């Protein structure tokens, strides 16, 4: 075995790769829960994108839905705490106020999505424009209301706390760190993997999924076999709204306990990129979100504790900007077709008009 290792070191490239693998094995288990946390809002945004676009509706307004839900959730918490108190009623530091506020946040996401659905499905407005309007309005409105209402910068209803898995679980060899990654989380981050798996199965194995995809690929054909295209599209956009709102609520109710103007900082759009990289499938999008967040985390890791040896010399000599750009470089490489072409649903972004019954 030693002989093999020495042989590997004698070839510089192999040696560096070997060191890289060793470094990853060393650092990734420690930071794996953080990688999932950073991926959570992106993955939820991507899931919203998948829901909408699989049924043929482009949703650029994800960012706007997220910021709205982040604001509404946080501010409902502020209003509800005096009424409902902060007594914990369940795991994850759940109080009645917090749970109700989350419900309100999700409802706000549905409302905004309904607006997008109405504009792009019923009114048949340009879907890009409709989404853009939602983004601009949501940013302006939440910023304005935040200025107006939150003069005393009140506390929200608290944040969902993380579950801490026992050491016996996280210390299990080989898979302990993966369990830690998915269990050492708050409820929203933990729910992502569940949602992704469920909707992957539903989308490709259920009647609803088949209908959604049919509507997204060829609505006219779907209509001729008796599928109500308008209804399917509405339903999918509204479900998507719940996901995006959950991503927004994550920012102000789980990751932090506060709202900042513009706190989504482009996560909705990165979610759309994750959706495309993941080829419009929930699992693919989740994987892409993880890829983005782990490249950021790895960049940070190299800054915090650089590896030793040749690899360390190489990595630390690169300017910091390279690591900032890493997620975007990964996106460009993937979109350039390195891992095959990413093809959207055929009717994506096209309004559907029933043939007039004369």
């Amino acid at each position, binding site marked *: 075995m030693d002989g093999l290792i020495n042989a590997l070191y004698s070839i510089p490239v192999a040696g560096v790769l070997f060191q890289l693998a060793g470094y990853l094995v060393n650092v990734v288990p420690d930071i794996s829960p953080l990688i999932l946390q950073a991926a959570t809002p992106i993955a939820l945004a991507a899931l919203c994108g998948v829901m909408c676009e699989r049924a043929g509706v482009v949703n650029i307004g994800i960012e706007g839905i997220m910021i709205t839900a982040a604001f509404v959730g946080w501010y409902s918490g502020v209003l509800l705490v005096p009424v409902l108190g902060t007594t914990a009623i369940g795991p994850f530091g759940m109080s009645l106020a917090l749970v109700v506020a989350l419900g309100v946040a999700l409802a706000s996401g549905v409302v905004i999505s309904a607006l997008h659905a109405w504009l792009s499905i019923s009114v048949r407005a340009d879907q890009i424009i409709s989404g853009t309007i939602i983004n601009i309005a949501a940013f302006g409105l939440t910023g304005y209301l935040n200025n107006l209402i939150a003069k005393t910068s009140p506390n929200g209803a608290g944040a969902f706390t993380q579950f801490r898995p026992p050491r016996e679980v996280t210390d299990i060899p080989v898979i302990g760190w993966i369990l830690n990654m998915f269990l050492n989380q708050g409820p929203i981050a933990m729910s992502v993997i569940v949602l992704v798996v469920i909707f992957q199965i539903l989308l490709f194995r259920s009647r609803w999924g088949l209908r959604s995809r049919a509507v997204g690929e060829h609505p006219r054909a779907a209509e001729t076999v008796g599928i109500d295209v308008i209804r399917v599209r509405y339903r999918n956009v509204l479900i998507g709204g719940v996901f995006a709102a959950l991503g927004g609520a994550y920012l102000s109710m789980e990751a932090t306990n*506060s709202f900042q103007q513009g706190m989504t900082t482009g996560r909705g759009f990165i979610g759309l990129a994750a959706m495309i990289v993941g080829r419009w499938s929930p699992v693919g999008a989740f994987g892409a979100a993880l890829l983005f967040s782990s490249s950021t985390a790895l960049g940070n890791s190299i800054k915090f504790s650089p590896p030793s040896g040749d690899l360390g010399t190489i990595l630390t000599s690169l300017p910091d900007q390279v690591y900032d750009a890493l997620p975007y470089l990964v996106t460009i490489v993937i979109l350039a077709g390195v891992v095959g072409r990413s093809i959207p649903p055929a009717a994506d972004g096209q309004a559907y008009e029933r043939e007039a019954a004369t």
Partner: protein
Amino acid sequence: MRTRFPGLALLVGLAIIASACTSASSPSASAAPSAANPCAGATAHSGGTHVFPTDKTKWKIGVTTDVGTVNDKNFNEYTFNGAKQAAAALGAAVPPVVVPKDASELAKNIQGFVNQNFDIIVTAGFNNGQATTCAAHANPDIWFIGVDQGPPCVTPDGQPDGAFKCAGDAKTLLPKYVAISFQEDQAGYLAGMAAATMSKSGTLGAIGGITLCGPCVRYIQGFQLGAQKVNPNSVLKVAWVTTSDFTKAFNDPTTGKNFGAQFITQNKPDVLFQVAGKTGNGILDAACDASILGIGVDVDQALSYPNAAKCTLTSAEKKLLLATSTDIANIVAGTQKGGDDHWDAKRDGIGYSPFHDLESKIPSGLKAQLDAAFAAMKAGTLKTCPDKCGDISTLPK
């Protein structure tokens, strides 16, 4: 046609991100003014040379804040309170205050006060720097106080210098523009002493928002020297949230919390100093989650960010209220000069915040030590910044 929509969608997305970035409430060192004229829109007031009232109760003082809210327990609030206090001392009217909806309104709000012939216009925060310089250039006969905007950097013709060559002499070019600056390294030094005293492991951390932020570098440089003064064996780990993105650096608590948590996991500090604005609020959250101590920045963060008060040891403070109110009083008294108005320990311009909830855990000698260091700063006998002050290369990784 098929692939058009995702591409177009991303393009629109990028455009919006880009516009969000430019309007973010963060120091705009990136303010390479878009080509032509950075001062378009800044015009002179009407009615000839401005005449200041002889009756000091008739002075008209206006405040324009940075993006956010007035009562933010941060730059906006303490600047406004400073102006209010000064006006009350003069017997003048309570200063009106305007809050911009986004960065595009900063200049408009200042111009509003100019058009109404105000005598003193106070603008809060680094973000207002360019707009204030422009207004001062167009109106050399009225007073401007720019809080945290010094030293002013202007071109030889008195315009804001996006290239940061600072060839012009602001004192003579803009004689009534008072650009307040603070000695961040002194405040950082006091925080560093407190941190090293409270640290059990001797490993300290500091996280700055963006590498381009000179004041952030000085805070951390002072922090390092202060920590070494108390414990020469203490180790300081420094990291920067980003090298390029101002929104991420100062306005994204979610990123801050994630970044801070990873920093704590990998570097294992037991006291963590944040110099990253609202992104830093997330860093304080991460410190609380990891059961270590955090140190706030600029204002008393146990008050400005009560979420993390239980683990916020103290904050490296700029005395915004004192600087603003004193300068207004000096202007009315006729003793204030324009240019860089520097606030250091000598003028009580910096300090450390009370320990609040953690008071009972503080060793008895710490306050005396901090006060002694502060006295030495006042006397000018304490070096709080390395020779290359503001140079990021002096900091450890």
